[in-house]
């Protein structure tokens, strides 16, 4: 276990951070931890024999690392793709798996239904969680990601011009199901917030024009965030890629409480905090590549600087720019987490 036993989870602290208020102690945020890193954190307790074993291992790992929450993914709402489970791999083409390529394949497509999900898993999983922590569900990819997955990215780009009506119908079918998924998970008291995970950009621009995202994607997230807020639960956006052209949509229209995923090449997290502090919580952000290539001392220095920047203002959670993949050096990533666990500097 990385955290000391007296440094217990406190979801209220996490929520306060998402409300952009100063917190008594640093808050940690990350979205996914790789299996090897989980094994390092919880040793023999790691088990992934079943889907539920994996959920429990994730909960234990997030607890051991000092987070105030655990992400949870419910097994069920998976949009069938021609590449089967390929889409779960680390590297794949956004063109692979194209299943709906025209009206005929659209008419034949069997849409997944939320009733296939066993939502009661949330309550069972919570039994393994610290009483002061909460679960934060996310989905098997977001709305744009799933549409790209079942149509193929380049096909989708052509569809925008060749058959805009079909494109709209596909987005509607995916969006409505993901909206329902979040509505269902938000019913549970064990759920403290939600993560909407949907990559919207490349390094230099959004994957579709902001106009298209506003038409087909953002309205669904606006409804999802509202559903969370109606339950007094914050909504976090995990979205990779360029975002400056849509940040106002994220903050003002969809009203996300926090945003995660930063890369130095796109916008260093320090700059993002400076630009958007007080308007949206900035989560994580230390570039994965930086953690991978720089020294442990450099990682510690950057983490301390981020905490120092945000201590008085609030609205920041320490963590990586994206996730904790297994290829990150143990000493660097655990040093980063330790900075958060050690508390704010007295200086």
């Amino acid at each position: 276990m990385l955290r000391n036993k007296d440094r217990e989870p406190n979801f209220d602290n996490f929520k306060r951070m998402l409300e952009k208020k100063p917190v008594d102690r640093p808050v940690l945020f990350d979205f996914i931890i790789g299996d090897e890193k989980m094994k390092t954190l919880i040793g023999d307790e790691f088990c992934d024999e079943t889907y539920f074993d994996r959920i429990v291992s994730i909960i234990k790992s997030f607890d051991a690392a000092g987070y105030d929450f655990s992400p949870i993914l419910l097994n069920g709402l998976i949009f069938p793709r021609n590449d089967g489970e390929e889409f779960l791999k680390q590297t794949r083409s956004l063109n692979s798996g194209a299943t709906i390529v025209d009206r005929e394949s659209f008419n034949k497509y069997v849409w997944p239904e939320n009733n296939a999900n066993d939502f009661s898993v949330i309550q069972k999983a919570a039994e393994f969680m610290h009483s002061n922590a909460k679960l934060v569900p996310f989905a098997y990819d977001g709305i744009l990601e799933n549409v790209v997955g079942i149509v193929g990215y380049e096909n989708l780009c052509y569809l925008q011009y060749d058959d805009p009506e079909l494109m709209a119908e596909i987005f509607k079918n995916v969006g409505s199901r993901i909206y329902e998924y979040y509505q269902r998970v938000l019913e549970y008291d064990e759920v403290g917030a939600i993560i909407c995970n949907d990559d919207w950009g490349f390094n230099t621009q959004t994957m579709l024009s902001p106009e298209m995202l506003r038409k087909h994607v953002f309205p669904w997230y606006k409804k999802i965030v509202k559903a969370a807020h109606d339950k007094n639960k914050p909504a976090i956006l995990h979205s990779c890629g360029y975002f400056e052209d849509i940040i106002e949509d994220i903050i003002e229209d969809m009203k996300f409480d926090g945003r995660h995923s930063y890369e130095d090449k796109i916008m260093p997290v320090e700059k993002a905090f400076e630009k958007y502090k007080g308007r949206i919580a900035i989560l994580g952000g230390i570039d994965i590549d930086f953690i991978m290539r720089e020294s442990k001392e450099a990682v510690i220095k950057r983490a301390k600087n981020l905490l120092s920047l945000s201590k008085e203002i609030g609205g920041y959670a320490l963590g990586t720019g994206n996730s904790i993949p297994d290829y990150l050096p143990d000493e660097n990533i655990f040093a980063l987490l330790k900075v958060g666990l050690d508390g704010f500097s007295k200086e």
Partner: protein
Amino acid sequence: MKILEEISNALQKGNAKLVREKVQEAINSNVNPTEILQDSMIVAMSIVGEKFKKNDIFVPEVLIAARAMNEGVKVLRPVLIASGVKPIGKAMICTVMGDLHDIGKNLVKMMIEGQGIECIDIGVDCSPETIIDAINTHQPDVLCLSALLSTTMMNQKVIISRLKEEKLLKDIKVIVGGAPVTETFASEIGADGYASDAASAAILTKNMILQKANGESQC
């Protein structure tokens, strides 16, 4: 010339049908095929590239413009061949071993072709041996290596080292790109060039080919 402007406008809008018709109309009117290609279609794709670089347009608009260009080239190619017009050079492109992400690669390929350069796409997940074989077969002027991940970008270095061992770098310039790649990294691994986006990659490729043709040693 009005017809060249019409082709350019139709191409920029991605109207493949109109591009086909207008190219045929230009050919029928005895417009020089090189002018159709250079002064209309390549100019149009350069405008598309510039707009893309400035985020005035997005990938869907680039794809439909490239599709329209391809349709126009299909009509124009027999006339170009008959006139003895050749591409200004040859590029080769792939993603490096371990990396299956092909969106960036495909975009760069389209942009390069939009500059009137032949571009051989050898696919994804390419090992040094695959690349060496393809170089020996196709003899490109420029090799473009794409990597999306922090882990796979290191394979760009491996590939450049192998090309150096095989003494293949004398006649080929290597450009690297991809999400995690930086200019510093490109320089560290011995690449000849780095491009931050597809439009820049195409312009860099063109410049390298022109410099090679002019006998200059460095880009």
